[in-house]
């Protein structure tokens, strides 16, 4: 009886709304029993045509657009576009602005990891963790709000530096939040990272072939979770990452658990990086102003810049033809590779219940797949 049932192949539509992602994306699963035989991704629910829109916007008008490309972590997008324009123009960035940018990027990484911790545990059925981490993420978001005026989308990093200097006493408030989060990590460990249910669900699940990981274009925590030490911040240091004391974190195992541990340790490392930034931050101007934004022509040329986001290499290819508007802005999000071709491959042979779990561990983000 059970043999006959298992032979029969059924089609199962998972999503567009489901716990594995921030956004909408459908996965068509062919299953026998509860084992996945074939997975096909269907995206297109969040296509907003940003790349096309940017071709009809002034350079300055692109900044409110790019930060919306990835909803959970907008700052690497602003950083990339700003850095690409600076490269095309040859504009210098004041030293203090570089430190503030690193602080923003690391705080954004921590906020993303907190959201990810909630998603990862929520997709395993552990619902206390999301309540805690989303609540704690709000302390970081409050800092963003004070600094930039926006909670989620900041439009703070722009060509030539950052939009405004730190308010008075801001450094102390950042340190206070860092102290709180550091002490909270013990609770997270007890609730998630050392939780028997999580270990049982995560160890040995979602294995990524270590030898093939680089060929498949895997980046970020999934790559470092295979024990391969590559990080854009070290490979091609930008801003002031080469002046700070930190190491690339890796973890052997190639499964969901090792990816989780990479993120867990990077969270701790980000706290230390932000503290170093606050200690070393020089005084001085924070912006090197450019021309009037309405008459702002960026010299013709092209630039490829990349930033290490919380999910891996975020790349921007920007082409300018010397006019008021960009010729082409092409965005490479880490989820573009992780969430489509790699996911389809990794889901084969997995259990249906692990689908969201695996997607979360890869950091799938549909808004940046479609843009």
């Amino acid at each position: 009886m059970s043999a006959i049932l298992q032979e029969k192949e059924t089609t199962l539509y998972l999503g567009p709304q489901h716990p594995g992602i921030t956004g909408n994306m459908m996965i068509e699963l062919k299953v026998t029993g509860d084992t996945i035989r074939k997975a096909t991704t269907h995206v297109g629910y969040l296509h907003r045509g940003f790349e096309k829109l940017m071709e009809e916007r002034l350079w300055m008008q692109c900044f409110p657009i790019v930060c919306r490309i990835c909803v959970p972590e907008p700052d690497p997008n602003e950083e990339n576009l700003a850095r690409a324009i600076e490269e095309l123009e040859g504009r210098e960035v004041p030293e203090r602005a570089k430190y503030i940018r690193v602080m923003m990027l690391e705080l954004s990484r921590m906020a993303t990891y907190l959201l990810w911790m909630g998603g990862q545990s929520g997709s395993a059925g552990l619902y206390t963790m999301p309540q805690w981490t989303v609540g704690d993420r709000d302390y970081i978001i409050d800092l963003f709000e004070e600094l930039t005026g926006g909670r989620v989308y900041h439009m703070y990093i722009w060509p030539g530096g950052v939009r405004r200097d730190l308010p008075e006493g801001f450094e102390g408030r950042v340190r206070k939040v860092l102290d709180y989060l550091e002490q909270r990590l013990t609770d997270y460990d007890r609730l998630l990272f050392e939780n028997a249910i999580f270990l049982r669900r995560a160890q040995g699940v979602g294995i990524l072939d270590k030898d093939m990981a680089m060929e498949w274009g895997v980046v970020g925590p999934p790559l470092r979770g295979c024990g391969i030490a590559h990080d854009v911040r070290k490979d091609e240091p930008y801003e002031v990452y080469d002046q700070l004391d930190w190491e690339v974190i890796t973890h052997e195992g190639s499964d969901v658990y090792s990816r989780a541990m990479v993120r867990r340790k990077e969270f701790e490392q980000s706290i230390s990086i932000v503290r170093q930034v606050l200690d070393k931050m020089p005084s001085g101007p924070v912006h090197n102003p450019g021309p009037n934004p309405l008459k702002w022509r960026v010299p013709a040329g092209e630039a490829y810049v990349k930033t290490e986001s919380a999910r891996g290499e975020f790349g921007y290819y920007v082409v300018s033809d010397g006019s008021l508007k960009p010729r082409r802005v092409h965005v490479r999000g880490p989820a573009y590779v992780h969430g489509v071709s790699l996911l389809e491959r990794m889901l084969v042979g997995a259990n249906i219940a692990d689908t969201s779990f695996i997607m979360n561990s890869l950091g799938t983000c549909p808004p940046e797949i479609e843009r």
Partner: protein
Amino acid sequence: MSDTLQKEEQIKASINAAFRSAKVSIQRKGRIIVEFRGGILPAFASYLKEYLNFKHLSMISGVDWPEDNQFELVYHLWSYEQSIHVMVKVRLDREAAKTKTLTPLWEHAETYEREIHEMLGVEFEGHPNMRDFILEDWDDLPPMRRDFMTREYVDEVYEWRKGREDAQDVRQTIAEQYNTEVPNFNNEDK
């Protein structure tokens, strides 16, 4: 300057020795641009991957140049060992844009090629799975072409919400629609 660009110069020399038709230029430290003509792109990509260690395909971009009547495909490759990024540029005729797929070398090239096929209308010979990616049932001009006019398309396909077409006050229209007085939305009147 010369010794800082040593690795780049070496790569430039080896590419020039192996492929005469490739035009190599060094953009800056860690960035090399290769302009490549002709249909032997897979062989060149395989040379870069196997012999020069450019193992990581970051992305494939498509840029439209209607003034030259050409599409430009840019293959972004990264070498982890040497920390160098190579942009391989291939120009295709806009009327009959066709090139060979790179899926045998990098499987994730499949997604990028599917998107470029959909957004620019470039054909990839030998692509295993050219189904719809983002746009379902699209039969208009591929939208990332420069001559696809977003504004005209929107005017044609969608209806403007009443009250928006001549910049008149939305509240007025809503009031007329419901046959009531103009509602007051000001916060201080609460």
